[in-house]
Structure formats: C-alpha cells, structure tokens
C-alpha cells in the first residue's frame, strides 16, 4: 500500500498510533500518527496528505456511518486518528500551505440541550476540512447573528431534538437571511424532515452528517 492509502486506511479503521490497541487486527502496527509524520518527512505535500490521505479515510467512515454499518464509537476512533494526523499539519495551516475548505457555524437551537447529534456533525465537518465554530446548546438568534457577523461567508447549521422548540429555527433563519440573503442554512436533528426544512425556508436538511458534507462540498464546487 502506498503511504497516502495507508493514512486513509488508518483513519477509516480508527488506528490512532502504534500504541493504540484498537482495532485489534492492527495491533502493533503504525497508525495515522506515524504515517502522517513519515509522509511529510518524505516530502509529500501537506495538502496531499490531507486531501488524498486523511480526508479519504474520513469520507469512507462517513459513508459507512450513513449506511449504519458502523456506529458512533467507531466514528470517534476515526475522528481521533484524523485529529492526531492533523496535529502534524498544523504548522502548514498556519503558514498557509494547507487551507481549510471554509467555515461552518453550528449550534443546538434555543430551548434545547441535546447535543450528541450536533457534536457528531461538527466532528465530521472538521474531519472533512472545515473549520467549525461550535456555539454550543440553547443558541438563540442573537448568538447566531453575532457569529455570522464575525465569520462572514460561513455556512450555518442548526440542530434540534425537541419538537416544541424546533420551530425556533424559523425566526433565526429569517434574521440570518435578513442580514445576508445568500446565507446558506442547514438544519437537522431526529424530529426534522425535508418538509419541515422547506416550511421554515432552510436551505438543506440531512438525516446524517455525510449529507451535510456532501452538500457543503457541492456548494464549494459551485463557487469555484
């Protein structure tokens, strides 16, 4: 296997580093940590390590998660492997040699504290090259507007698990679009549907994080 493939493989299967006992069939083998370092030392472009290695692995696990063949803990092992690899790329982000795809602001809507799903979406976005600004839980229009102002051009996502408060999303969307009519707003959470998304004038609904990533990526392609 070529080294970039090995990196993707480690991320897909959640092999963090040599020390990590998970997954059992890769015990005592090098992990994302070692391979990313090796790749950079051998002169491979940091951008290729990210896009042809780490992100490929993250995308594969996202697809498996969508298909329900792996669950949150496996995804977390992948995300962890990804972040350990990313740590080696940090200097290259700072120098500008590697760039993030864009910014994504995310939060659980006002009146709601459920954040497991939102955290997963945030994690997958990060793993796919986005800079995530996580506003936490119980987030009202004021905080979303403030973040929109601070990070113009960002995509915005809202999560809701309570049927009685998911309607709060509607007014936030109105406010956000008043400031920037081109603002793209993503919505999600167990009780939501495409129908509800259309009703509140949101731009995109997905039942899973992979959908968010695919749509965000497609927006980037349109822009470029």
């Amino acid at each position, binding site marked *: 296997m070529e080294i970039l493939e090995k990196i993707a493989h480690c991320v897909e299967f959640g092999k963090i580093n040599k020390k990590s006992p998970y997954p059992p069939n890769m015990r005592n083998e090098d992990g994302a940590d070692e391979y990313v370092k090796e790749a950079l030392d051998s002169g491979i472009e940091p951008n290729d390590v990210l896009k042809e290695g780490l992100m490929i692995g993250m995308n594969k696990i996202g697809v498996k998660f969508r298909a329900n063949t792996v669950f*949150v803990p496996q995804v977390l092992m992948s995300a962890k492997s990804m972040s350990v690899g990313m740590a080696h790329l940090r200097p290259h982000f700072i120098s500008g040699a590697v760039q993030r795809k864009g910014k994504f602001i995310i939060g659980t809507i006002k009146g709601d504290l459920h954040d497991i799903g939102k955290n997963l979406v945030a994690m997958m976005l990060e793993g796919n090259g986005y800079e995530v600004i996580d506003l936490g839980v119980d987030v009202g229009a004021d905080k979303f507007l403030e973040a929109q102002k601070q990070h113009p051009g960002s995509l915005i996502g809202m999560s809701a698990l309570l049927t009685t408060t998911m309607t709060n999303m509607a007014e936030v969307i109105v406010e956000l679009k008043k400031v920037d009519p081109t603002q793209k707003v993503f919505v999600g959470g167990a009780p939501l549907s495409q129908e509800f998304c259309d009703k509140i004038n949101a731009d995109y609904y997905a039942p899973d994080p992979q959908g968010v990533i695919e749509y965000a990526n497609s927006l980037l392609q349109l822009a470029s």
Partner: protein
Amino acid sequence: MIEVAEILDVKNITEEIKLKVSDLDISVADLKEYLSPTGEEIPQYFIDISNEEISKLNNFYVSAGYTILPATTEVDLLKISEEYFNVGKEIIDQLRKAEYVAVYAVTVGNELENELLKYDFQTQMSEAYIVDIIGNVIVEKTALYIQNKVAVSEKKKSLKTTNSLSPGNCGWDIIEQFKLFNLLPDNFLGITLNNSGMMYPSKSLSGMIGIGKKARFLHSDCKTCSSKNCVYRKK
C-alpha cells in the same frame, strides 16, 4: 363510595431518595441503543471500556424525588395547585381520568455530572462519548425507578398510573418546566433552570405521572411519531 383522597392516605407528600448507581444495575446491554442501534456487533474494545467505566460510576449516587398533588382538567388545560398547564392534546387526553399526579425530577447531581465530564473530548473522544452515554442511561434508569415506585405504591391502594409525561414531549412546551418546578419544594434536588427552562445539572429529567382509579398506561405508539431517526423507534 370512598373518594380517591381517602385511599391516598397522605395528600401532598414529597419523597426524596438517594440511590447508588449500582442499584440501577447498568450493563453494556443498556448502552446498545447508543452503541449499536441497528444491532450490529459492538467491537470488544468498546465493551471493555464500557464495563470499566460502569464499574467506576457504580460507586456514585443519584437523587430522585416526587410530590403527589390533586389534579383536574379544565377543557384542554391541566390544573394543579392553582397552576394551569398547557400540556398539549396527546398528554391532556392521557390525564383526563387522573385525579392526582406525581410530579417528579431526577438528577445525577453535581458530583456525578463532573465525573461524567472527566475526559477531554478533543483528546479522548471515545472514552468521553461512552461515559456521556452511560450518564444518559443512569438518569433514564433513575426516572424509570421513580415511575415504577409510584406505580407499585399506588397499586397497593388500588389506584392505577399513566405513563410518564414530560415537558418537551409531544406538544408540551419546555418553558412549562418553570411551573412544574413551582410544584416542587424550593431548590429541589439542587436542580436549577436556565432562561429556556433547561435543567442543570444537564443529566436530569422531569415529568408527571397521572394517578387515578381509571388512569391508564398507554404504550407509546412509534408509528404516529414523526421522529423517523429516533434511536428508540421500534422498527
């Protein structure tokens, strides 16, 4: 004819209970809904972490308590101690035959909540996640314990109980948490509410259980619920 008030030997009783987590008998099986909702095999590694964390958390305590109050329905509102609740159609229909309600809250408390946050999510994601879901199961099982306790003790008085009904469910707005907590003693179990009605410690649950001669327990019907991705949805 004997009135329900006479059957219920004490009116307006409040009970507070401290439970040891080990009494809740938590096992990896309880985490399945979160670890593998479609029944796919859970890797041994996660089973091992879960078992290890459950055994540590077993030494902690949780708090639970309830108060029983007379309740009536007026058209579509529920009335308890001069407080009117707009609980929504599904819930009011379940409470029409109730003469009393047990208003309850449960919480892991500050000490256990802090313990549940001991792993840094950035560096130990899987551990942090597993401990977090064990926390959810702890508070869910504590609520079940209370529901069961109320049902059993009312049954001795030949009274029946409804399901547990909570603000935030069906059409019952979470903002009515304030009214619910007004029915409980001040600073009940140390739970506080923020402006939106969210409880802190966040691993807390609240609700009401209807009590009456003709109260009925209804198994919730997943088919009519719109939460298509619900981890509890019966396939």
